């Protein structure tokens, strides 16, 4: 092979590698943005759930002990949300936050027992409204967490590729982690 041909071949290979790098980088950018978006959405839903829970605690439709338990769990959730690092590179929740949210789900499950729900629905009106708002926010938390974890799974799949690892295409972005906490609705509120 003559020298110009070898040179042409080398240039061609470099261009191909360059194109694939830039394609992979764009794909990864898209995926990272998606993960940050779904995490922001989950964060917002969690705040709404905590606010609805706080409203339920303050509404007087539950007994004082249940109200106190819910108020405490909801306030923990709200302050965990405030403490959360809002850096744009952030791709995960802290373990503390996961624990706090699990405890809020559990508190809701305990406070909204079948008996409590029956009492609330007998009284009707305002109590029913606020309980259905708590249910709606809980459903949204479930969806948001699931869609976030799907996005995380997709990013992790791409970041395992050799080209991404060799050329450090992910830059300094943390490896995203799935968000794991108990998000089950109270038994009596399941469809």
């Amino acid at each position, binding site marked *: 092979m003559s020298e110009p041909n070898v040179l042409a071949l080398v240039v061609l290979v470099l261009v191909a590698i360059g194109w694939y*790098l830039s394609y992979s980088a*764009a*794909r990864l950018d898209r995926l990272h943005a998606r993960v940050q978006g779904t995490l922001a959405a989950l964060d*917002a839903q969690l705040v709404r759930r905590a606010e609805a829970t706080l409203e339920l605690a303050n509404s007087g439709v539950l007994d004082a002990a249940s109200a106190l338990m819910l108020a405490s769990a909801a306030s923990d959730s709200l302050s965990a949300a405030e403490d959360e690092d809002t850096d744009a590179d952030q791709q995960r929740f802290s373990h503390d936050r996961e624990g706090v949210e699990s405890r809020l789900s559990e508190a809701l499950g305990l406070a909204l027992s079948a008996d409590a729900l029956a009492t609330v629905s007998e009284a009707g009106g305002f109590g029913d409204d606020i309980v259905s708002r708590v249910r709606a926010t809980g459903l949204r938390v479930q969806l948001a967490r699931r869609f976030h974890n*799907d996005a995380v799974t997709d990013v992790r799949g791409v970041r395992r590729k050799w080209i991404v690892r060799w*050329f450090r295409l992910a830059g300094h972005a943390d490896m995203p982690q799935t968000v794991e906490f108990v998000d089950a609705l109270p038994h009596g509120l399941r469809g």
Partner: protein
Amino acid sequence: MRIGIVCPYSFDIPGGVQFHVRDLAEILRARGHTVSVLAPADESTTLPDYVVSAGRAVPVSYNGSVARLNFGLMTNAKVTAWLDRGRFDLVHIHEPITPSIGALALWAADCPIVATFHTSNLRSRAMQVSYPFFRASLEKILGRIAVSEDARRTVTTHFGGDAVVIPNGVYVDRFASAQLRPQWQGQPGRPTIAFLGRMGEPRKGMPVLAAALPRVLAQMPGLRLLVAGPGNADEVRASMTPEVASATEFLGSVDDADKATLLRSVDVYVAPNTGGESFGIILIEAMSAGAAVLASDIPAFVRVLDGGAAGATFANEDSDDLAQALIRLLGDDTERARVAAAGRARAEVFDWSVVADEITLVYETVLEGAAAARTMPGQGVLGRLRRSGKGMP
């Protein structure tokens, strides 16, 4: 919201996915959303005004059977034009993993995408998900819905991640308020039971039912079996004992209104299906109409029947057990009324009003995540190289 829905199966042919898409489009429109459906259709077919034709589907031998698909540059241009004209806030693609307009829309769309997975055909999924170029476009799906636990398991096995289970919807009221027809209603000593579906297909369970009936007729000689659905009645009749054949009336294929009337008129609806069902919408229709349901205990049916609380079940493919269960149910009016009432209450979970709420919730959650993602800065390849301090080769 401006919503585009993609249905890969032709609107010329009746089918579960097509009905689901039609019903979904109609309830979303009734709720004030702007909806456009893209689906294959023959030129001669008259379509509802919200459906845009993607052209005629071509029968192709694909993945071990003949599928009707749309592909090629012309189809691609149609899909792109539909997306451009629609300016959708969100596109909802049904069965995105078929080499048809679903895959084309997934490739071309740049708005948030929700996908619904209907079938649980493992073989085709395993194959297609592994294509690298297709994998990248699957990453554009921001919310995955599966219509059943089986479909969900298929999705999670091949994609990783998860899917939200939202069942197919039924307009419960249409069945609950269907007309009664006296000649299909049971009389004292002459109860009626119904079988619906393609009777010639063994997995629909007609042989199991036919084998059970001699025992039932011995105790209840007045029993009448009403069979509705496509298939060769003479062949099925020939496979029955003479007593069973003379107790059976073949109604042929029935339209939606007659189906509802039949389910509302009979005493018991029997679903002896032996497998291959991923959901069981017909059970919900029967429950909505107020028929007591007696079904084989295949997993999909047991789930629809809420573990057996909303209908009676018998051991799958066991004619003796079916006969016993049928005798018990037909012989006890109180028990039958209880089963029917439990079924009627259970059906509400699958009413379109509930199902549409759940689907809308998915749309809203996905749009919120997508809106937040748009505000995140991208790095681009150069910025990334600068930051990591590594050059090109």
